[in-house]
């Protein structure tokens, strides 16, 4: 197999066409039967090292005291995402990060709820809004025609606390963080 693969770049350079055809094994195909015999012969050879490491990276992780190892697969990807999010969460000092990193507060159920496909996507979004204290700003709601009042009650409260006299007319984002 290695010989064939090494041959491929040379054929490509020469502009030759290479076609791979899948042959059903153990079906009487003469070259396949020959390959089988070579394989049997090769297996008996002492020079063969089946334990030769491949170049594929192997990932290790420990979960509940058990160490697991695996090549890259969906489970490993999930674990990496989880580790990255945990690391990133530590760099944040806000109230939401503090809320999410609290131990023994049933955060596992929050995660389950959020990724549960049977939950309506808007419900999941609202839960995120709820836990991050993000609500639509009144200015944005006016643009959508939901509110008549332009002044945002939460913004006004924040500007008063910060002693800012003239609140800006435009909002920076739809999300509105309630300071506390």
């Amino acid at each position: 197999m290695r010989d064939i693969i090494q041959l491929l770049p040379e054929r490509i350079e020469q502009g030759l066409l290479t076609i791979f055809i899948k042959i059903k094994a153990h079906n009487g195909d003469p070259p396949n039967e020959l390959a089988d015999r070579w394989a049997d012969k090769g297996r008996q050879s002492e020079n063969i090292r089946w334990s030769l490491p491949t170049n594929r990276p192997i990932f290790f992780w420990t979960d509940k005291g058990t160490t697991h190892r695996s090549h890259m697969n969906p489970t490993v990807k999930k674990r990496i995402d989880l580790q990255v999010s945990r690391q990133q969460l530590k760099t944040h000092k806000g109230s939401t990060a503090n809320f999410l990193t609290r131990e023994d507060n049933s955060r596992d159920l929050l995660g389950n709820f959020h990724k549960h496909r049977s939950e309506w996507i808007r419900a999941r979004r609202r839960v995120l809004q709820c836990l991050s204290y993000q609500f639509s700003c009144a200015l944005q709601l006016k643009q959508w025609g939901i509110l008549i009042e332009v002044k945002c009650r939460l913004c006004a409260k924040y500007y008063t606390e910060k002693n800012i006299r003239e609140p800006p007319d435009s909002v920076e984002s739809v999300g509105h963080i309630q300071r506390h």
Partner: protein
Amino acid sequence: MFSIRKSSIELNEASEPRWHFSSALSPEAYAEWGLYKILKYMGLHEILPPGAGQNRAKLRKDIEEYLVAYAIDFDETDIGTFIARRPDGLAFDKKKKLCIFLEYTRAMDTNEDWAEKKEQEKNDKYSSHLGFINHLSNRDKSGWKASQTNFTTGVRGSLHTNQFLTRLESLGVKNKNTQEALRNRTVQKTFSIADMILKFF
């Protein structure tokens, strides 16, 4: 917050359900019992026929006696509030003569100590009631002991897992799957309430 049946699955020495949740009306609904009913159930107070007019007077006298004995400052309105207060749920163990006040609370979980603060508040609310029941029980030598168990959930789905499961176990919910299902359902319910409120925002 979650459903309660009339009696627990846990059995006592006589192979009868250990806990009785007498104020539960159905798995989904329960009545809030006042002090009269609680004391009547425990045999510490006799409810006289309607019109006798002595129920409130007798109970008031007992409460006054308790407040004086423990040097607690009070006035007439305090006693009225004291009688009117009703715990969310009740659990009775007739054999061991235990009465447990159940309090279900949905608290704001902004701070780290959200549950501790709320539970302290709840304990303070009923400490004098528990003291009064224990006082009456000692006086009448009936052997009843009253205590309180709180089930506190954060508005954003926070729930102290170990504490919650231990408290469920103390009330006869020994099955791990049932405990987990109850924890799951409690948090799910909190999320749906939060969602319902936000829908109207």
